[in-house]
C-alpha cells in the first residue's frame, strides 16, 4: 500500500489546494441533508407513543452528540499523528476542529436538557453519561485554552496534541457509561449487533440529519484549516502569490 497520500496530506500547500475544491460542495451537501433530515424529522416523522412530540428533539440531540464525539476522535488522531510523524498540518487541524467540537458538545448538553425537562422531570442530573459529556466539553475547552495561552507555537502545538490524545480515554467512557453504570439516561437505541429500537420512518430522517451534519462540519473544517494555513504559512511564497493573485 502506498503511503504517498498520507505524506501529501502533511504538506500545507497540497492540502490547501486540495481542500479548496472540496469545501464548498461538501458544505452544500451537508446543509441540504441537514435541512431535509430536520424538516422530515421535526414535522413529518411520527410522534413517540410515550413521549409524544417532545421525542422529536432526538433529531437535533443525536446528530450533535455524535459529531461532538467524532470531532474529538478526529482531534485525538491528529494529536497522535503530530506527536509521532510531526506533520505540519496536524496542529492546524486540532486548532480548527476544537471550537467546532466544543460547540457540538455544548449543543448536545443543551438539547439534552431541553429534552430531559419534559420527559425525565429535570434539566440535569449528575449521572455517568451527562457528566462524561461535560468532561468532553471541558476537554475541548482545555485544548482551545492551551493552544491560545502558550506564546511559543511549538510548545502550544505539542501541549494541545498531548491533551487531545490523552482525552481519547473519555470516548469509551461516554459510549459505555449507560451500560456500565446505573444512569438516568437510557441505553443505546442503535447498536451494531441488533436492529434499531425504532421503525424506519423514525430512523431514516435521523440518519439523513446525521450524515448532513457530518458533511456540514467537514466543509466548515476545511475552510477553517485553509485560513489557519494562510495564517501560519504567510511567509512562504505560494501563500503570498495566492493572496496577491486572488485578493483574499
Amino acid at each position, binding site marked *: 500500500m502506498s503511503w504517498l497520500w498520507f505524506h501529501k496530506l502533511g504538506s500545507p500547500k497540497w492540502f490547501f489546494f486540495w481542500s479548496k475544491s472540496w469545501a464548498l460542495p461538501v458544505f452544500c451537501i451537508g446543509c441540504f441533508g441537514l435541512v431535509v433530515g430536520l424538516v422530515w424529522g421535526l414535522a413529518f416523522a411520527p410522534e413517540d*407513543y410515550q413521549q409524544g412530540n417532545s421525542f422529536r428533539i432526538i433529531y437535533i440531540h443525536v446528530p450533535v452528540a455524535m459529531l461532538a464525539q467524532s470531532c474529538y476522535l478526529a482531534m485525538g488522531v491528529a494529536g497522535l499523528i503530530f506527536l509521532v510523524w510531526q506533520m505540519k498540518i496536524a496542529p492546524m487541524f486540532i486548532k480548527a476542529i476544537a471550537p467546532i467540537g466544543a460547540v457540538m458538545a455544548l449543543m448536545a448538553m443543551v438539547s439534552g436538557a431541553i429534552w430531559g425537562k419534559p420527559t425525565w422531570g429535570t434539566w440535569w442530573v449528575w449521572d455517568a453519561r451527562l457528566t462524561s459529556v461535560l468532561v468532553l466539553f471541558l476537554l475541548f475547552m482545555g485544548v482551545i485554552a492551551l493552544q491560545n495561552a502558550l506564546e511559543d507555537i511549538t510548545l502550544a502545538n505539542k501541549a494541545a496534541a498531548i491533551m487531545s490524545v490523552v482525552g481519547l480515554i473519555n470516548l469509551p467512557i461516554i459510549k459505555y457509561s449507560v451500560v456500565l*453504570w446505573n444512569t438516568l439516561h437510557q441505553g443505546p437505541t442503535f447498536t451494531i449487533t441488533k436492529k434499531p429500537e425504532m421503525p424506519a420512518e423514525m430512523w431514516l430522517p435521523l440518519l439523513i440529519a446525521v450524515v448532513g451534519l457530518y458533511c456540514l462540519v467537514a466543509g466548515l473544517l476545511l475552510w477553517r484549516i485553509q485560513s489557519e494555513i494562510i495564517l501560519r504559512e504567510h511567509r512562504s511564497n505560494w501563500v503570498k502569490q495566492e493572496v496577491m493573485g486572488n485578493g483574499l
Partner: protein
Amino acid sequence: MHPQRQKRLLAVIAIVLVLGAALALVMYALKQNINLFFSPSQIAMGEAPSKTNIRAGGLVVEGSVQRDPNSLAVSFQVTDFQHSVTIEYQGILPDLFREGQGVVALGQLNEQGTFDASQVLAKHDEKYMPPEVSEALKPVEKPAPVATPTYY
C-alpha cells in the same frame, strides 16, 4: 517505520495505556458513587445507607400506585423483579410517570424501610415507536384506554 517515529509511537501508546488503566481503577473503586441510584435489591441487602440522601430506582409495580384523594401524596412500589421497595412522595410527578415505567427517586430510607422521596424523575427506555404501532402491539384481551395520552 522510521525507528525514531516508532519510539515516539510506542511512548504515546504507553502513556495512554497507563493513564487509561489508572482511570479504570479509579472508576472501578468509585463504582458505587458513579451509579446514579441504588436498586431495590441493593436496598434489601442493606447496601444503601439510611437517614442520608440517596437515590433509589426501578420499575413502578403495576397496580401499586395509590394516590391520596385529598393531597398530592402518592405511594408506589418500585421493583427490579427480585426485590421491591415502597416509595412515598408528595408533589407533582413527571409526565412519563406511569406503572411499568422506570423511575429514579431522591430521598431517604426511614426506619420502616420505606423510602421518603423529595424528587421523582422518570426514566424512559431506548425504544421509540409511533402510537399506532404501540396500540397494535398491545394484547387484544386488554381493553384499550379511552384515549391515547398525548403530551403537546
